[in-house]
């Protein structure tokens, strides 16, 4: 099996993990950093056999692409559950609290301790977020369902959940995590994401989410799996290794 792997800033650590898993054998894989694919339209719309990458420092690189009819498509992050597109919205969306008494109870959270959080109903949440999954998966970059359908199988690895420090900083809130909002947010957004993405009718589609074992109690990625960076949204190679190993991709790698 051959693999075509598209990704954004998460691709680098994923690639390191993927290659490290190769061992003695060489799995034929083409890595495509989405923002750097200069001939994006040729690749996605016109089945180009090669991707031309350009980098900010002027370097260029040509990546040969295997026939899609013999390959798996893998999407890594690429804005799906991205920190900017999903958790932190342009326009400063306030913390969204999809209230679930059960989750609060299970986590020993007293919602009355957090009076400033505006509760959001599932209907309102859906109205706000219903266009987000397909915008991130397709429209933002210019992917099409037809392009995805050319491949034998499709795997979407959604982005790692950002770190707790990210939420505390970007959402100006200490309450968001303590009130178990993130778990509820992920559940609510997950329902919309699944509905919208599966609604495309793509064959052989697998969506792979962050493993609970890689996350802290509050639903953020555990610190030991994060890259040492200011933004605190990118995971390290160990993180991606565990996600790859837990996914059906391992069996396909042979």
């Amino acid at each position, binding site marked *: 099996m051959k693999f075509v792997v598209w990704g954004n800033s998460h691709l680098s650590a994923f690639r390191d993990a993927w290659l490290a898993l190769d061992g003695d054998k060489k799995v034929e894989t083409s890595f495509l950093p989405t923002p750097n694919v200069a001939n994006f339209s040729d690749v996605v719309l016109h089945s180009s056999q090669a991707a031309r990458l350009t980098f900010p420092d002027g370097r260029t690189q040509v990546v040969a692409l295997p026939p899609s009819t013999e390959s798996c498509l893998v999407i890594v992050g690429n804005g799906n559950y991205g920190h900017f597109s999903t958790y932190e*919205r342009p326009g*400063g969306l306030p913390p969204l609290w999809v209230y679930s008494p059960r989750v609060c109870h299970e986590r020993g959270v007293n919602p*009355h301790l957090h009076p400033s959080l*505006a*509760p959001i109903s599932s209907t*309102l949440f859906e109205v706000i977020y219903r266009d987000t999954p397909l915008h991130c998966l397709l429209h933002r970059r210019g992917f099409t369902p037809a392009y995805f359908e050319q491949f034998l199988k499709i795997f979407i690895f959604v982005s790692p959940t950002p770190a707790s420090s990210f939420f505390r900083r970007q959402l100006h809130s200490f309450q968001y995590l303590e009130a178990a909002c993130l778990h509820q947010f992920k559940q609510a957004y997950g329902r919309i994401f699944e509905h919208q993405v599966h609604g495309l009718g793509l064959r052989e589609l697998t969506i792979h989410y962050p493993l609970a074992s890689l996350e802290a109690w509050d639903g953020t990625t555990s610190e030991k799996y994060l890259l040492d960076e200011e933004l605190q949204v990118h995971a390290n190679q160990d993180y991606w290794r565990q996600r790859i190993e837990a996914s059906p991709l391992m069996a396909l790698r042979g």
Partner: protein
Amino acid sequence: MEVNPYTDLPAGAFWKTGVVAEGLESSDTIYKKKFEISLQDSLAVAGSCFSQHVGRRLNKNGYNVLDLEPAPPELPESLHQRFGFSTFSARHGNIYTARQLLQLLQEVLGEHSPCDYIWKKNDKFVDALRPSVEPDGLDSPEEVMEHRRYHLARVREVFERLDVFFFTFGLTEMWEHRESGTVYPTAPGTMAGAFDPRIFVFRNATHAEVLQDFNHFQSLLLRLRGGRPYKLLLTVSPVPLTATASGQHVLVANAYSKATLRSVAGQLCMDHEHIDYFPSHEIVFHPKLHSRAFAENLRSVRDEMVEVVMAYFFAEHDLHGTQAIQNCDAHAEDLQPLSSPAEEVDQRTGVEMACDEMILESFAPPL
């Protein structure tokens, strides 16, 4: 001619000159303000569905209208109304009666706990005290309680922060929980819930009850604010009742309701220096309009007419020194009879109006 008390009165004091002869737009005496409102004043808006027009236009004209439960930034403006945002100063939906207003403040102060206020709507749950703010309802009773808890905190903030409260009286008719006295903005079984006459009872408030409720509200408001004074602008919604459960013809029931509310508003205005009355009801029912102020359903006030009504307000409360009734885009006397079906839509803003009681129309017998 002998001098008598009517000798030197202005044209507006006489029906012949003030109503028959004077054009609606040229009359500048229908409303004379009692006090100033400044740009710095924080306005809170509440009341029946007509007050949605008021709030929107106050905002548009640069008034500092409080909005303490704002819509999430990414919710399209066209959907704000549907979820009860950007309509009033908090997300309380329409407050039709003085009792409902009093009850809300009592609840804020912890002096009243509403009973039987979580009603089922299909497999969802609705806050019966503001049933229109979540059109599909919420997922659990606990969620309704949690949303209400947050809402009450915001309402408290509105009452604490306001300098001017613009309240529109809408109805005297209401549905009450027999045992607890909790009143609801809509009848059980219409938007949600189920009607059981052993649990719910119809009430039609008298002048004395409305006055008592409103004065009680005022005393609680002053207490909440630690005695800090405020100003009150009252008006009576010109929108007639959609339906009545009083047993009377709706025309008669409507006259009772509006007359009672108008009388209470008038008395409050006479009794209190800090209360002013704005005559939106009178302007809309001006005889020269021959009901053209209304849409084809003879109930919804046409958007052009709302412009005229508010022009009277802005002519008196002229923040920018540019307002005059004559400058109003719409002219009441130019209103033509409608030929298109009436819609509950603010034509100028394209915003749908949320009138909970409109749902009662669907229970009317077929024509």
